[in-house]
């Protein structure tokens, strides 16, 4: 019971605007019988519910109050402290006399990462506490302490990073911002750079298929980001960062509360690096492009006493990058003698979430999000222009049915208008071969309407299971659409998608928790944006058929246990296995020839098996250690041959050490990653076949003072880098050129210092 509450304290919200719920049961402590019609309310508020005949209750978590009171004549008033309520199940035992105050020991410090024991999905949460130990300029650098997510560069000129979850690229997982779809479509290639690390309050990474509430995607997992909330955040905070390559960053956060209902927040981020360096390969190519970014968020939160809750967020990003040859300047765009990379991106994102209670046991939530995205980029002489507009509407109802079980149902609508244009590769004269329609357009428009429902079965706090189903109908595509809802080229057009998903959580024995999930998922590929790295090469893109919507099944099991070591120490152990198997997939085949990239529909098997184990312990006060290991077994059929998927480590090991002195005055963090070998695709370079394993380390020291803190750290302590990331750098406009073969860090040892200041 106490443990459960502790868990609740450490949990974060993963639910939608309809709010978090605390469910539980009131029983007579003497007889153990359920108590009927007992009021349960949040202390100091008017929101309360009555228990049903089984003693069960479900109460919306009140944003202000954390004290759950149960008062009944003849019984002592009981109170429970519930900080965060995501999927919390509590049991209240009322005693006939005497006062009982269950006090929960509140630890002064949050853990850096933890796995959520109470949620039905396997979720790993990276907290602010964890992010503070990393320089984490942006989301791409926030997963260093997690073995679940792998991060790598997509090519050696653009500086953009890609994530992998369960051995597959990040596009098969769903990126959410406060439970609303966020980075998708064309935003994917540079998307990790659009989320400043300092803005985030937490990152939740769930493995396996998600529930059906957020669409039919999320095949390998969900990454949900929570930005700082204006009601809770400090009035002002500032972060300044500078590294040894003269990259500067500034993050400012301002929160203002008009009254107890209305609050607003302004988040501003800017980055600028003044110089290009060429430490790696000494090939005349910049290690990292010049980069400027301005990123602004304004958000509004309104909470009415009636329970109505509204959150609205506006985000604007402007980014400019310039890389490639060290001599290249902006004006030289289109030059056929000096290779340059450049790009300008503008992105507007908006969401509004509104929720209210329909009754004591039901709530309604709405999510509306819109994105406008435009990118104008070039790699050497190939031009890329992408424009995307999308609108997303999701309406959902959560209601309790008899016996504490719940149902969720709703409708969703999505409109995406994607326009990708790829200019010529004059050095080879090769645009995509046998192209349909007018040459180089990869346009499509998708109109999707969906219906979904799920049922959550609850058996005390021992077992719960969620069975969900969604049906999505797609308006038939226009003729010139390249990516469409046909199962295969031109024939067998299918306008619907049926997505079943099942999750369960079972407390098997003494808090050994077994979780499982299985389900189907779909997604529409964006052929160029998702394979952006190949543009940084002289490879000829060969596309001979219409690419179908991708379809895959994912299933997995997870066993976790939290131990008590001694009086007050905790240790946790998690072991999980997930398998993803594709029914149809857009395959990028780099192994036909070293100067070609073929894109076609999967013909044969494509799967990923991933086994991972995590262990963490706090052996001494202030000292914590976590250890993780992972095996990736990822295969795909390339031109009738089953081969390992390139750029996927066969295994990975991780050791995270953290030590802090009393009152957090000093803090030391050290992360060591052991990256296993990867298979390289055919290329024109000297390195073929498998890569060597390598060690990547980073460390940081933080000193905290009364009003500010200073930090200094080193990235890539061992200094291991890929020796010659740009293949054929002396002939960048020929088919010998390939900067897309990246398997190791592209930045050498990097020192940084920073300052954080805040006014509560």
């Amino acid at each position: 019971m106490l443990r459960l509450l502790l868990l609740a304290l450490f949990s974060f919200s993963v639910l939608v605007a309809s709010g978090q719920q605390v469910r539980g049961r009131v029983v007579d402590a003497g007889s153990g019988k359920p108590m009927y019609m007992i009021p349960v309310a949040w202390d100091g508020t008017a929101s309360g519910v009555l228990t049903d005949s089984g003693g069960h209750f479900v109460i919306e978590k009140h944003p202000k109050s954390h004290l759950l009171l149960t008062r009944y004549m003849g019984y002592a008033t009981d109170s429970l402290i519930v900080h965060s309520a995501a999927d919390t199940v509590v049991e209240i035992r009322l005693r006939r006399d005497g006062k009982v105050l269950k006090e929960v020991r509140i630890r002064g410090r949050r853990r850096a990462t933890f796995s959520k024991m109470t949620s039905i999905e396997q979720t790993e949460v990276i907290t602010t506490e964890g992010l503070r130990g990393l320089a984490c300029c942006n989301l791409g650098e926030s997963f260093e302490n997690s073995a679940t997510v792998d991060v790598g560069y997509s090519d050696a000129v653009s500086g953009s990073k890609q994530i992998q979850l369960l051995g597959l690229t990040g596009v098969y997982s769903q990126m959410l911002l406060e439970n609303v779809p966020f980075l998708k479509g064309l935003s994917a290639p540079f998307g990790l750079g659009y989320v400043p690390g300092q803005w985030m309050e937490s990152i939740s990474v769930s493995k396996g298929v998600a529930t059906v509430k957020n669409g039919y995607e999320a095949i390998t997992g969900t990454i949900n980001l929570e930005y700082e909330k204006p009601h809770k955040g400090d009035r002002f905070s500032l972060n300044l960062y500078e590294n040894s390559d003269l990259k500067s960053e500034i993050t400012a956060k301002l929160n203002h509360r008009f009254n107890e209902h209305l609050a607003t927040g302004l988040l501003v981020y800017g980055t600028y690096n003044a110089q290009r360096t060429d430490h790696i390969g000494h090939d005349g190519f910049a290690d990292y492009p010049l980069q400027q970014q301005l990123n602004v968020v304004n958000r509004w939160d309104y909470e009415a006493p009636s329970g109505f809750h509204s959150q609205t967020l506006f985000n604007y990003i402007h980014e400019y990058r310039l890389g490639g040859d060290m001599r290249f300047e902006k004006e030289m765009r289109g030059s056929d003698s000096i290779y340059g990379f450049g790009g300008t991106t503008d992105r507007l994102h908006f969401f509004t979430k509104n929720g209210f209670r329909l009754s004591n046991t039901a709530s309604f939530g709405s999510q509306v999000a819109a994105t406008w995205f435009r990118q104008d980029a070039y790699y050497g002489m190939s031009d890329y222009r992408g424009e995307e507009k999308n609108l997303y509407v999701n309406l959902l109802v959560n209601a309790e049915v008899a016996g504490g079980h719940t149902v969720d149902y709703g409708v969703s609508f999505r409109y995406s208008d994607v326009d990708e244009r790829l200019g010529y590769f004059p050095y080879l004269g090769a645009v995509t071969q046998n192209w349909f329609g007018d040459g180089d357009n990869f346009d499509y428009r998708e109109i999707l309407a969906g219906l979904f429902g799920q049922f959550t079965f609850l058996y005390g706090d021992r077992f719960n299971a969620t069975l969900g189903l969604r049906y999505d109908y797609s308006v038939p595509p226009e003729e010139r659409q390249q990516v469409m809802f046909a199962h295969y080229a031109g024939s067998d057009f299918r306008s619907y998608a049926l997505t079943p998903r099942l999750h369960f959580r079972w407390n098997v024995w003494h808090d050994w928790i077994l979780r499982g999930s299985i389900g189907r998922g779909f997604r529409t590929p964006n052929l160029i944006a998702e394979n952006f790295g190949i543009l940084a090469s002289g490879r000829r893109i060969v596309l001979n058929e219409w690419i179908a919507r991708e379809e895959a099944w994912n299933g997995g099991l997870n066993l976790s246990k939290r131990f008590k070591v001694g009086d007050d120490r905790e240790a946790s152990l998690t072991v999980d296995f997930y398998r993803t198997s594709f029914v149809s997939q857009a395959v990028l085949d780099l192994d036909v020839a070293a100067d070609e990239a073929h894109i076609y529909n999967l013909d044969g098997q494509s799967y990923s098996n991933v086994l991972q184990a995590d262990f963490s312990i706090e052996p001494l006060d202030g000292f914590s250690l976590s250890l993780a290991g992972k095996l990736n077994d990822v295969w795909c059929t390339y031109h009738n041959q089953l081969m390992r998927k390139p750029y996927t480590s066969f295994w990975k090991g991780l050791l995270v050490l953290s030590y802090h002195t009393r009152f957090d005055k000093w803090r030391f963090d050290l992360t060591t990653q052991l990256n296993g070998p990867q298979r390289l695709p055919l290329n024109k370079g000297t390195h073929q076949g498998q890569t060597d394993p390598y060690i990547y380390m980073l460390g940081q020291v933080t000193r905290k003072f009364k009003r500010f803190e200073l930090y200094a750290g080193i990235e890539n302590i061992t200094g291991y880098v890929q020796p010659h990331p740009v293949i054929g750098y002396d002939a960048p406009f020929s088919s010998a050129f390939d900067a897309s073969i990246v398997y190791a860090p592209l930045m050498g040892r990097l020192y940084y210092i920073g300052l954080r200041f805040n006014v509560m």
Partner: protein
Amino acid sequence: MKKILIVVLLVAISSVTYAQNKKNTKTAEISIPGYCCKGLNATIEKTLAYERGVVEWTLHQDKKSVTVVYREGKTDPVKIEKALAANGVRTANEKPNPRAIEKLPACCQPAARGEASCNKM
């Protein structure tokens, strides 16, 4: 890691000797009427730990107060009370910062707001 631990130890030792060498200390008892549960201890201690001129302190849960030994000239009881209030602790003379109150453990919040008094520890 070993090196880091040695550095930590050195810093810890030097700061202890530094504190002992100082004279001109005074003692003040600061009343904390908002003290309601042990959850507040961490906040009080953390505040005092970061306060310039504070040498040591003793918490008296029964008396709802804290005895602070401080260096004269570096700080005074008024400054200490202000620092506590800035972190959400209600003292005899200072009202706490409302945003900081929300970061306190739930059991301490009503008393910090001045909404309720509590009798039980």
